[in-house]
């Protein structure tokens, strides 16, 4: 009889690690694959980029590889093309995002209406957004083509132009042409975001305002805009960052030319890496790009915090 309590007590010996610690370890184990992915493809490469930016590292001159401290950054400050690309980036980002926003908002208001075939139209109008950047660039290169492009043809038939225009190889027009292409591509992003916001606005608000005699414009100004404000801020900021970083479209369409007319900072980084094979300078450029983005994100977080507090 006396031995029974002993056998009963035996399972109560403390486990090697407590249940809570065990659970925590399992949690960390689940994170390992994702952490490894990030470590190998983001964290280590960024560290490497910072290191590379401190070296003279031109691929075809391996004998000149040596530490030069902030040399690449000093060169960058004195490089007039760098300052030009920063300005071009501002034009590119501001032009693209502003026009995408206005057109995307208009599109969202249209697609918010009830009409037959709405689901189909919604899907079709989003297509420019999901196709590869190369495809967008090539489609528009063909549309802009001076001799066989349909844009010149249509404009001349309509009597708006007397002679053919080389859209992408004229320094005055190239930026407008690539921005317009990017607008075509990016409208659906704002449409999706704003449409989701519009659908969340309760109908009763509009009905009440209508009873009070508010005009269409008044309802838009006093109900729609204030309620969509948080979404507008988030969508615009994300889009600004994305457009600033985005290099594919310009790289495909003009390669930054003619004479750097469409060279934005991110494509300039690519050109330095691919054409001059100057990885040190290219890395310094990309680190600056990253710093600009971090500064913008910090400012953006403060603004959105402000928005949340107001709401």
């Amino acid at each position, binding site marked *: 009889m006396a031995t029974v309590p002993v056998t009963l007590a035996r399972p109560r010996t403390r486990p090697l690690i407590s249940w809570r610690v065990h*659970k*925590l370890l*399992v*949690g*960390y184990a*689940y*994170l390992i*694959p*994702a952490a490894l*992915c*990030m470590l*190998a*493809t*983001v964290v*280590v*490469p*960024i560290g*490497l980029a910072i290191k*590379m930016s401190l070296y003279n590292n031109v691929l075809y001159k391996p004998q000149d590889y040596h530490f030069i401290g902030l040399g690449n950054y000093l060169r960058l400050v004195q490089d007039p093309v760098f300052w030009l690309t920063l300005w071009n980036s501002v034009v590119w980002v501001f032009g693209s995002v502003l026009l995408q926003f206005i057109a995307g908002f208009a599109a969202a208001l*249209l697609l918010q209406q009830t009409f037959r075939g709405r689901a189909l*139209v919604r899907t*079709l*109008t*989003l*297509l*420019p957004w*999901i*196709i*590869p*950047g*190369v*495809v967008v660039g*090539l*489609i528009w290169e*063909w*549309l802009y*083509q001076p*001799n*066989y492009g349909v844009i010149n043809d249509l404009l001349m038939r309509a009597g708006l132009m007397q002679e053919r225009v080389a859209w992408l190889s004229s320094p005055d027009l190239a930026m407008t042409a690539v921005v317009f292409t990017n607008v*075509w591509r990016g409208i*659906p992003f704002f449409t999706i975001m704003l449409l989701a916001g519009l659908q969340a606005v309760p109908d009763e608000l509009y009905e009440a305002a209508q009873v009070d*005699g508010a*005009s*269409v*414009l008044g309802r838009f100004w006093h109900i729609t805009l204030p309620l969509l404000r948080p979404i507008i801020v988030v969508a615009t900021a994300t889009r600004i*960052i994305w457009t*600033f*970083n985005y290099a*594919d479209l310009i790289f*495909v369409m003009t390669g930054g030319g003619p004479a750097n007319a469409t060279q934005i900072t*991110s494509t300039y*980084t690519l050109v330095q*890496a*691919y054409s001059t094979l100057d990885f040190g300078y290219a*890395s310094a450029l*990309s*680190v600056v*790009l*990253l710093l600009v983005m971090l500064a913008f*994100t910090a400012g953006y977080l403060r603004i959105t915090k402000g928005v949340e507090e107001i709401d």
Partner: protein
Amino acid sequence: MRRGGPSDLAERLLAGPVVWVGLVALTAFALGPFLWMLLTSLKDRQELYATPLQYLPVHPTLENYVDAWTSTVTPFNRFFLNSLWVCSVTMVATTFVSILAGYAIARFRFAGRDALLLIFLATQMFPSVLLIAPLLTQWRTLGLIDTYQALIYSNFSFTVPFTVWMMVGYFSSIPRELEESAMIDGCSQFGALCRVVLPLAAPGIAATAIFAFVVSWSELLFAISFTTQTDMRTLSAGLLYMVGQYEVQWGQLSAGVIMSTVPVALLFVLLQRHLIHGLTAGAVKG
């Protein structure tokens, strides 16, 4: 209440003609360029370079598609298979990795959880040009240039942060009690994840997976940087390669453009349905 005033007229105009004109303009603007590319791809060389411009192909032909697909200089069938393989593997691996990480972040309280989430968010804002030089150096050191691995691993840099972020959202919306009762019934934590959580999150996971596929399909800069052989080009890289090859063959190129667009367009239609499904499922539960 005012009736019959100028605002009433504005309203009737806005509800009727303005909406219709706007919708037609919007659809035409979005689809016009695709349509023009499709028409181009069906023209033979003579019609393609006719002056004055010939809008509709008089003798529509699929020659351009056949030429692009079987070309030996720019083997489109090879590009297509390369893209399909790279994107599929990226999709499967990304989904697996982000399910585990998303579940851990949504369910376990551990030190550095918020910091980790912030890192995943911030990574999405990094310029991809930042990664090209260091990744190229890294893959070269590891002897991975001209391999599928280099492209797949590189794709993780932009797919994983986003999909983890999405998964955290899906898993957080599933009530914890469901797993807890499964675990009381004798399921392990992993068993509960597989048998209870995953089926509930399936629509969201499908949407995330397709998203990873679509963004990998668009990837260009890694594909041109980490491959040197024509045989290793993906569709995006291959299309760019076609342009650089000789005098631009717009007929073949437009066929290539259409062929690269169709798969993602189809997937997108699928993605939309899943997304809506996921949203409504959440709404019904909530």
